[in-house]
């Protein structure tokens, strides 16, 4: 079961991910496209936040531990009103608050610097515990990459989490999502260092685990509900996703882990994301001024 509103936001964010990465000329499309549905489901489905007051103490928090997918977070933040869509194309440019990986000091709304993989879950645990100690209703969402869980610190954090704050302040205000797109930088995870069995590993560390299709808004929402309803322990959601989701030539292809599309490729990608046929594209663009502006901007980039 989908959710038309969230699907539409995610689709618009996918377009922005492609747009900003193409302007940047570098970055990580594959993992940004795999995680965007989960991020949109969290930010637009339930996050208690106020983009005009990013330092509101009782806000819910997102820690994107797989910091290389930050274009997805930037796209969602822009859609939520933290900054304008126009700022997105400053990604990775000198002086931009949109750093190549999340920088808390550069951009309000980023909760922690990440990108050095393996660290975000520990910070999220501290945020969750701190909220509990302060008696705050704040909820914390942490998104891990699948390859990221090869880092040892993740398992230190996994081992500590079910016991942390017990008995008075258990961190059941923490939901963790693994974006299981099966591909890391060098190759398929199964070829580099197999992660399996992922579910039983986390269960053995004391976590309740929910497996879902990470592109199905209905399944994501249900899992987030279930996590929120779980008391006395944080919950792990294994979101099965497709790397490069929405762009046929990027899907399931390790080549697109960390490479930006060229403008012509970006325009094809945007057409696919919007679900328009090649034959219908010119008419679609002619009728849709927002898309026309993005396409025009990309064509000018090509001419440079």
């Amino acid at each position, binding site marked *: 079961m989908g959710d038309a509103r969230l699907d539409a936001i995610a689709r618009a964010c996918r377009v922005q991910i492609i747009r900003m990465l193409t302007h940047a000329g570098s970055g990580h499309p594959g993992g940004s496209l795999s995680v965007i549905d989960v991020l949109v489901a969290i930010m637009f489905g339930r996050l208690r936040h106020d983009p005009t007051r990013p330092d509101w103490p009782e806000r819910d928090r997102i820690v994107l531990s797989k910091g290389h997918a930050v274009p997805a977070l930037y796209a969602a933040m822009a859609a939520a009103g933290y900054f304008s869509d126009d700022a997105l194309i400053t990604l990775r440019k000198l002086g931009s608050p949109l750093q190549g990986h999340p920088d808390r000091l550069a951009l309000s709304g980023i909760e*922690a610097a990440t990108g*050095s993989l393996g660290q975000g879950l*520990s*910070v999220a645990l*501290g*945020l969750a515990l*701190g909220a509990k*100690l302060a008696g705050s209703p704040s909820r914390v969402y942490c998104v891990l990459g699948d390859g990221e869980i090869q880092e040892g610190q993740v398992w230190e954090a996994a081992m*500590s989490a079910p016991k942390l704050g017990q008995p008075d302040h258990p961190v059941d205000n923490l939901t963790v999502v693994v974006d299981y797109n099966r591909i890391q930088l060098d190759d398929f995870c199964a070829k580099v260092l197999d992660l399996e069995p992922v579910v039983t590993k986390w269960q053995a560390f004391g976590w309740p685990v929910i497996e879902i299709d990470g592109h199905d808004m209905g399944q994501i929402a249900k899992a987030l509900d279930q996590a929120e309803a779980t008391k006395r322990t944080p919950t792990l959601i294994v979101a099965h996703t497709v790397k490069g989701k929405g762009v046929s030539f990027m899907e399931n292809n390790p080549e697109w882990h960390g490479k930006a599309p060229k403008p012509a490729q970006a325009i094809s990608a945007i057409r696919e994301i919007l679900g328009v046929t090649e034959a219908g594209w010119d008419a679609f663009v002619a009728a849709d001024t927002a898309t026309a502006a993005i396409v025009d901007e990309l064509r000018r980039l090509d001419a440079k």
Partner: protein
Amino acid sequence: MPAKASRAAFGEALIELGAKDERIVTLDADLSKSTMTAGFAKKYPGRAFNLGIAEANMVGIAAGLALTGRVPFACSFACFIVGRFETIRISVAYTNANVKIVGTHVGVAIGEDGYSQMGLEDIACMRALPNVPIVQPADEVETKQAIAYAAEHPGPIYLRLTRQNLEPVCPPDYAFRLGRWCLLRAGSDVTLIATGGTVFNALEAAKLLEREGILADVINASSIKPLDEEMLGRSASKTGRVVTIEDHSVAGGLGGAVAEWLAEVRPTPLKRIGTTTFGESGDPRGLYAKFGFDPAGIARSVAKFLGR
């Protein structure tokens, strides 16, 4: 006042500060009996978190707690906590999380446990981070003041504490200030700049040198970052000869920091006393003699440096 380890003074200071400041919490990695936070944990059990032997996770959790308004003291042996440098670098420093990183058991002075437990490169690592001050107090009075300062300092800070007892060295009216050193003894022939466990020995060495007609400025450099550039410049100009003395590697330590400043700002002949090899097991007194950190060893190095 009897000699006291700075880790012990730290443990006492935390209990006192914890009563006044609800924000203070401690995190340990199964060494709370050694870092001396166990007393705080006993007094405030809901505010002390033992994360097991997992320092990187401890540092990250401390960062998260800091971002929600707590003032976490994350504690372990200096080599183990700074050994998780990448987590400190990103989750604490780059995030600018208000974490107090406490490294105890610094230097060869820990003795019998040997090199693997000795913090000998921690200053070098932490100095490279742009926003983390480094403080190493020299006695009980200074430790308690430095801990109180750290609790109020708005941002990450690294505190370097000893296992061994430290003789009192600070004057009665002493007041710790970040970036300010303390001139403990005034001379004219050479400047001795020591930190932590070597300060008392530098003072004793100055007495030995006086017998040979060498008068030394002796400075307690508890603020390793930032340096007290004013005092360093003034003393170096006066004596024309500078010696640094630290129970840490000369590469990147206090000696490294002083060398960099002098070379750029006021070129002055410099002798750095510190480690240049791995440490080893032994009794602390014997190790200090072997590494030349005892009063006689310091005096010998200084006399040689001055060509006497």
